[in-house]
């Protein structure tokens, strides 16, 4: 930046200039505070509105949600490189699958992709998601309770990550869920009893975590093999009326 001042000498002839950028929702505009010290009254705010270069489409909620996810993830092998938020929808992003008829995201395939970081509440925006495949990565943090909003979810594969905290009770809202694989993480707390209401649940694997309490026996839990609960601090099947389900937690 070149500042020229041809005033010869005056105690107040230094030129001050500072600029900063306000970031707005869908465009940036540059606010230039450009004022001269001598007549302090001159304080003009120029607001040149830069035309929206890529107006992000705020109702592209699925694309926004995925892009928010991207910002939380560390992606050393650039598997998320194609996730360009300026596109109308995320359907042409790699690792994202939409249904052909109405362009809703139905699959997210990021298994075995060397990603770390955390998951966020925005994942709950993917209302049409059926397959959430994030297995075998190094994702940490908690399982967002907002995943319970994924009403169409069939399969949630978060196994072999570094997830911690409790299994959110909200997952009991996933009435379409058939496969819930959370094994090999660092999950704690008890198995939420509300999950026994998932009548479609066919596979439930929480082995190799740090869960406590007892194993539910109702609903689909009557059929899951003990292998699905191994390597935890679980106290065997629930003995209703005898000990509380979170005994030992």
């Amino acid at each position, binding site marked *: *930046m070149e*500042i020229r001042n*041809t005033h010869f000498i005056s105690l107040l002839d230094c030129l001050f200039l500072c600029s*900063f950028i306000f970031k707005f929702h869908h465009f940036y505009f540059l606010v230039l*505070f450009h004022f001269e010290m001598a007549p302090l009254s001159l304080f003009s705010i120029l607001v040149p509105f830069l035309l929206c270069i890529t107006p992000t489409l705020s109702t592209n909620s699925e694309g926004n949600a995925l892009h928010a996810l991207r910002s939380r993830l560390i992606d050393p092998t650039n598997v998320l490189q194609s996730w360009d938020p300026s596109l109308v929808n995320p359907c042409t992003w790699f690792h994202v699958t939409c249904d052909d008829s109405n362009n809703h995201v139905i699959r997210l395939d990021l298994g075995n992709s060397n990603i770390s970081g955390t998951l966020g509440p925005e994942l709950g925006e993917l209302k049409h998601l059926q*397959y959430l495949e994030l297995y075998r990565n190094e994702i940490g943090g908690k399982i967002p309770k907002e995943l319970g909003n994924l009403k169409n979810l069939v399969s949630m594969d978060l196994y072999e990550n570094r997830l911690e905290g409790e299994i959110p009770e909200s997952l009991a809202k996933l009435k379409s869920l058939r496969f819930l694989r959370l094994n090999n993480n660092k999950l704690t707390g008890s198995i939420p009893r509300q999950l026994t209401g998932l009548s479609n649940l066919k596979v439930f694997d929480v082995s190799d975590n740090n869960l406590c309490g007892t194993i539910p026996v109702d609903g689909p839990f009557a059929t899951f093999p003990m292998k699905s609960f191994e390597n935890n601090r679980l106290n065997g099947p629930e003995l209703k009326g005898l000990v509380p389900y979170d005994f030992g937690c």
Partner: protein
Amino acid sequence: MGSIQMSHLMLLLAVLSAGFAVTHADNASDSFWLLRVKSEIIDPARVLENWTPRAHICSWNGLTCSDDQSHILGLNLSGSGLSGSLSQEIGHLSSLETLDMSSNFLTGSIPSELGKLQNLRILLLYTNSLCGKIPAEIGLLKNLQVLRIGDNMLTGEITSSIGNLRELRVLGLSYCQFNGSIPIEIGNLKHLTSLDLQNNSLSGLIPEEIHGCEGLENFAASNNQLQGNIPSSVGLLKSLQVLNLANNSLSGSIPIALSRLSNLKYLNLLGNKLSGEIPSELNQLIQLEKLDLSENNISGAISLLNTRLRNLEALVLSDNALTGSIPSNFCLRNSTLQQLLLAGNMLSGEFPLELLNCSSLQQLDLSNNKFEGELPFLLDKLENLKDLLLNNNSFIGALPPEIGNMSNLENLFLFDNMITGGIPVEIGKLQRLSVIYLYDNQMSGHIPRGLTNCTSLTEIDFFGNHFTGSIPATIGKLKNLVLLQLRQNYLSGPIPPSLGYCKRLQILALADNRLSGSLPPTFRFLSGLSKITLYNNSFQGPLPNSLFLLKNLKIINFSNNRFNGTIFPLSGSNALTALDLTNNSFSGPIPARLAMSRNLERVRLAQNHLTGTIPFIFGQLIELKFLDLSFNNLSGGLPSQLSSCEKLEHLLLNNNQFKGTMPPWLGSFQELGELDISSNYFFGTVPVELGNCSRLLKLCLHSNTLSGEIPPEIGNLTSLNVLTLQRNNLSGSIPSTIQKCKKLYELRFSENFLTGSIPSDLEGLTELQVILDLSKNLFSGEIPSSLGNLVKLERLNLSYNKLQGEIPPTLGKLTSLHMLNLSNNHLQGHIPSIFSGFPLSSFLGNDKLCGPPLVTCSGSMGQGKKHLSNTEVAGIIVVIVSTSTVVCLIMLYIMFRIWCHWRDQVSISSADGVVGTEKKRGEGKWVYGDEKSRNGDYWKVNSMVLVSSQDKPAKSTTTCVFHLKTDSEDMEADTCSKVT
């Protein structure tokens, strides 16, 4: 060295001998040294032209002499276009009091010899390209009052010797690359009034000693990396009028001591890491005119009051963590406040009515807060307001009609609120309105025609509301319009032809509406148009040819409309980067002219009626990433020139009539993630080079007539998620390398002529999930027990092969399975009990298989008996009973004949024959001869149970119609009817 001094001497002698004896000896030496200085300066504007020994030194440009012309006092060559360097000989001009070389292009370093100029009072070297450090000798200039050397490329630390300049008034060191910390010796400069250190790389603390600069009026150190607290001693600088510490890394709270700066007019602390609350003591700064504390972590409520800070003109507190509401006594009726910027905090409450008293306000920014409630009717009391930014809050209710009285309004930002109701017609009175952003609200009603009276409008964004009706026919009055964004509303009707007269329009976004009609030919005037998005409407008709004249188009998206005719008019621009015409009724060829847009990245022409071939000239589109031509009537082969499109990521050519072999150069696309050439007429082998596309995620080659073996190189595609090779003529066995494709979740090999056994290596594909379909091939041998490792698999189809042996019990580990088809093989033995829940159709057509859901295994299980369900058993019983009856009748008849024969003839002849029952299972036949059924509507299986007797063959035909979902090809028998 010697020769240089000799030449100096020669020059001196020459000057002396030139007969200027009258001039003072000082002048003579000054002119000598000045000519030395000149000799190192490049002077393209010839400013120094009259610096010759012939002219008197006092007449030389830029020189000021003493009254008696006895010695030079000043040298001012500011802004003279000089380059070159500043000679060290300048140090010999010992009488100089003022040296101004500012605003030139001087390079090199500041000569340390300047330290010899003991009379120097003013030294101005700012705005040059000087580099190096400040010479420590500068501290020898005891009489220096003004030192301004900023806007250079000076580096290093600020020399502490600067503290020796006891007479210094002005120190300007801004816009250089100084590092290190501010020297504490700066506190020695008692007379300093102005200290400018902006835009360097200074770090460390602001020295406590700064309070020694008793006379300081201006202190600016913005845009450095200063750390630590703001020292309270700054509060001792009683004369301070300007304090600018913006954009540093200062932390801690704002010192209360600042409230003692009773002369302070300007305080800027933006962009630091300051925390804590704003001290209410700052209200004592009654001279304050500008206060900017934005972009810090300041919390608490706003304690500053315009009623106390009566001279305040600008208050900027944006992007902090301020809470609460705006204080009720914030504004005076005669407030001078012009800018109030509070954006990006957590301020709450209703629109602060108190603000309506700030009648001088020109800018009000409350955006990105938690304000709620309705907008006040009296908003128009802010009659001077130019910018009203209320976006990203939770305002509800309608836009008050009084807004029409805010005649100075230029920018109206209300986006991302919950505003309802319509746009008041009064808005048409806003002659200065330039930008109106109402997007992401719930506004409804028509767009008032009056809006088109706001002829200063440059940007309109109504995206994501519920506006109905049509676009005002008078929109063409908005001659300054640059952006028209009406996406995602319920607008209907055609585009008014007058829109073509908005000649400055650059972005036109009308997508996601119910607009219809065809594009008006007046669009030809939109020569500045760069982006036009009309997708998801009901536009129709051919495109006006004049669109070809729009040479600046970069982005076109017309997808999901009913446009027809040729797409040639969209090929006029050489600036195109993205063209999406998916799902229209365009016909004719793909215009080769598109290849003139060398920056084209995305071409999506799928789901039209395009004919002809892919223009070979598309090979010039070296930026092309996305090429989707699927679902058209395109034909011909793939032009080899396409191999130049090395950045291709998606290549979708499926469902056309492309013909020819799969070219090996497909393997050269290193970025390719998706390749779909399915449902065409490609033949020949799958090129081994495909194995080089290591980023492939999806490879769809199905429904062609590819032959030969599956190349083992397929195993190099380690990222592959989806591989579909079904419905080809592939032969040979599955290469064991397939196990390396560990990320496969969908694998289809069905309807080929694949032989050999199912490789047990498939067990490595542990992420297989959607389907493993090997049906309708010639696979033999046993089902590998290792398939039981595919624990995520949801569908497994091995039907119509020649598989033998028993179903391995390990398949019981497939706990995710919900579709299993093992029918029509040669399997035998018990069906593992875990599969008893699968339907009969999963196992039909295996001669020697038994157990639920088939018939219970008998003792002679697996010895050629057909195992059937109860209904079939019942049927068989009926057949057996009926045939037994027939047999009995025949026996009776025979006995009767024998008896007759015996009765008639004494001799006994042999019987006619033995009649028994025999069950035979007909080979299932696939009905996929015609193209229609190949494309996946349905196929039929006829399985016959022949019950024959010598005399009366009875034929019972079971017809199962398997409905194929075209996408998933989920094979589940829906109806099985028995026709007898």
